[in-house]
């Protein structure tokens, strides 16, 4: 792997720390302009997501993205301004983003989904990889040569990016993401936003990042209406799922070479499972999203489970048996109760579950309820999941 060594990152650490500390303590006081809970295009209230916040003021919007936990907690701020508007005082460290963003570089399927949901998919002019796209609009633009491939996160082609002069580059942040990685870009006046939507612990929290996209695209009212519908439907379904009389047991994932990664109680996947009315063994284990268990620790559960979900890139029971003949002894294998989330894989091999699925949790929950309790949704057809035979 190539690493860019940023000569000033070391020297910059201390001032950065001090400034960000000052910033965190002072940003509460320096509000130039009256706090105003509505912009021309409406405003958003963040109810589920823990990773970001938006404050609306008279002439600008302030986006805060939180990263890290505990002592490493950090906030990155962005001032969103309309063209020609004067930048507010007191946000020296914040990056300025001109809105609505005309040209967006997206680094993950999730970002494509956010733009698509906000009806702004045409603003995408660059992607980390052109191989992972489901959105019809974006694929049309790729075919027309309007979307460039800029290289996957960590090995982005900075020169190309800077010459494209995008309005915003959206990258995948993680708790330990060092912003210094992107200083070349931000130094050249290209705003970089570290999204960490995938760290959200609830499906609605993940989906709510569409409100951030709405703020960037000046589409608050439109997105709020859509998101409210998603939220209402999700909560309606969760109420149905939780009331289910039986709670089937299940295992998730596919072991590899003796290690089995299972989602832990803090992952959004387990929230789905709880809302779909299941009995999941690791629902109360706190962790980083998944637990690396050994095959033996999961086998007793898998041998007697009612269902087996999310088995990776396989397409049939034969594929599973070919990986390891031991899996054929699992009860879900014998009962034909294996379901995989790859029903919407397109011709280039991109799985829409990771794209539109992320902003349509109500559909994934419907799928799950249909799988575990078919009698609760008799007329429903699976969208993202399919049964393996």
């Amino acid at each position, binding site marked *: 792997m190539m690493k860019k060594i940023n000569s000033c990152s070391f020297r910059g650490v201390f001032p950065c720390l001090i400034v960000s500390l000052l910033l965190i303590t002072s940003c509460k006081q320096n509000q130039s302009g009256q706090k105003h809970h509505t912009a021309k295009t409406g405003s958003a209230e963040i109810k589920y997501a823990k990773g970001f916040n938006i404050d609306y003021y008279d002439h600008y919007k302030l986006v805060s993205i939180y990263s890290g936990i505990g002592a490493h907690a950090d906030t990155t701020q962005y001032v969103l301004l309309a063209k020609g508007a004067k930048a507010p005082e007191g946000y020296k460290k914040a990056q300025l983003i001109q809105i609505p963003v005309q040209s967006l570089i997206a680094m993950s399927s999730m970002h494509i989904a956010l733009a698509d949901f906000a009806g702004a998919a045409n603003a995408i002019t660059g992607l980390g990889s052109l191989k992972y796209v489901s959105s019809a609009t974006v694929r049309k633009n790729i075919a027309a040569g309007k979307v460039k491939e800029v290289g996957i996160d960590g090995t982005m082609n900075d020169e190309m990016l800077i010459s494209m002069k995008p309005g915003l580059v959206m990258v995948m942040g993680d708790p330990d993401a060092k912003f210094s990685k992107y200083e070349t870009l931000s130094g050249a006046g290209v705003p970089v936003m570290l999204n960490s939507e995938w760290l959200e612990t609830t499906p609605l929290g993940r989906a709510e990042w569409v409100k951030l996209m709405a703020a960037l695209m000046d589409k608050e009212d439109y997105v709020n209406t859509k998101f409210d519908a998603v939220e209402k439907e999700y909560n309606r379904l969760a109420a149905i799922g939780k009331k289910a009389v039986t709670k089937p047991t299940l295992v998730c994932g596919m072991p590899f070479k003796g290690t089995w990664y299972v989602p832990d109680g803090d992952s959004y996947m387990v929230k789905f499972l709880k809302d779909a009315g299941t009995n999941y063994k690791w629902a109360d284990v706190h962790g980083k999203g998944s637990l690396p268990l050994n*095959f033996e620790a999961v086998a007793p559960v898998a041998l007697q489970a009612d269902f087996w979900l999310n088995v990776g890139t396989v397409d049939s029971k034969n594929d599973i048996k070919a990986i390891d003949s031991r899996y054929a002894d699992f009860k879900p294998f014998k009962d034909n109760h294996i379901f995989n989330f790859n029903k919407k894989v397109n011709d280039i091999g991109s799985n829409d579950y990771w794209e539109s699925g992320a902003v349509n949790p109500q559909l994934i929950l419907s799928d799950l309820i249909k799988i575990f309790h078919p009698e609760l949704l008799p007329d429903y057809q699976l969208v993202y999941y399919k049964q393996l035979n």
Partner: protein
Amino acid sequence: MNKIKVLVLLSILVVALLLDVALGSVHIPLKDVIKILFTPDAGNETWVYIIEKIRLPKALTAIIVGCGLSVSGLQMQTLFRNPLAGPSVLGITAGASLGVALVMLSAGSITSLYTIKELGISGSWLIIMASSLGAAMIMILIVSISSALKDNVIVLIVGVMIGNITLSVISIWQYFSSPELIKDYLLWTFGSLGGVTGEQLLILAVVVFAGLLISFLSSKLLDALLLGDNYARSMGLTVKRARILIIGSTSILAGGITAFCGPIGFIGIAVPHLARALFNTSNHRILIPACCLIGTVLMLICDIVAQLPGSQTVLPINVITALVGSPVVIWIIAGPTKLRGF
């Protein structure tokens, strides 16, 4: 004296084997373990599954890996007359990894070579072949360099560098591969004993047994080579043929094991020294079985440690072999024992 040592080693082996099968994430009382081992279809179905389908194959894999890697390391140390030679040091494992990467990153994951199976070639054999060929390629390269340069240290450095070049070729390839394939490959590089079952285990056993047989039959050749090419010639050996034979069996051993268990380090370099020190000989007729014994015991102990009895997680076996093997290597270089036989 040697008999006592062998008996002691054998009893440690039996205890280690029993512990390896008895300990794990799921607590199974010892008497039930023994019952399951000796009477088919005894009692609790889940326990039977865990012992018969998870722990036993893993323990057998540990035995095979322990024998194969130790003997391939011994042969390399003799061939290069270099105490620091070993499959992982001289880039042989890297060569095998290149072979595996060739198959994995181009045809799909190592375990779901379904497409290839449909073409009529069994995936396991294909991986073994690719891996052994990769190992042999690097072996031949290093042997030809070492016959040109008589300096052991230079050969060692060249070997390490060739290993690095191989790994960077793999890295470049990974860079252009899809994330799923990279993930499979990356997990494979951690090394694991738990992923070999059924047919694969049989294939691995056959391949390693063949390699061990070749090396045992060539123990005289190895003894002669140890004393120098000129001496070997004076005994009427065709040095070139002997070399080819030894390279062949080393490649099969290291290649086969790397194919299924990933690049497991340190066992190959450490065990031969332990065997020489313990049995105080450089006679390969004794050293080869001794390596098998010590290698097996060491691998079983590493596996017991790796599965952290009672915990739900398992550590990659490579981590443990490095922890156990590195001190041995340090002891070889800096310790009081004179390097026997070199």
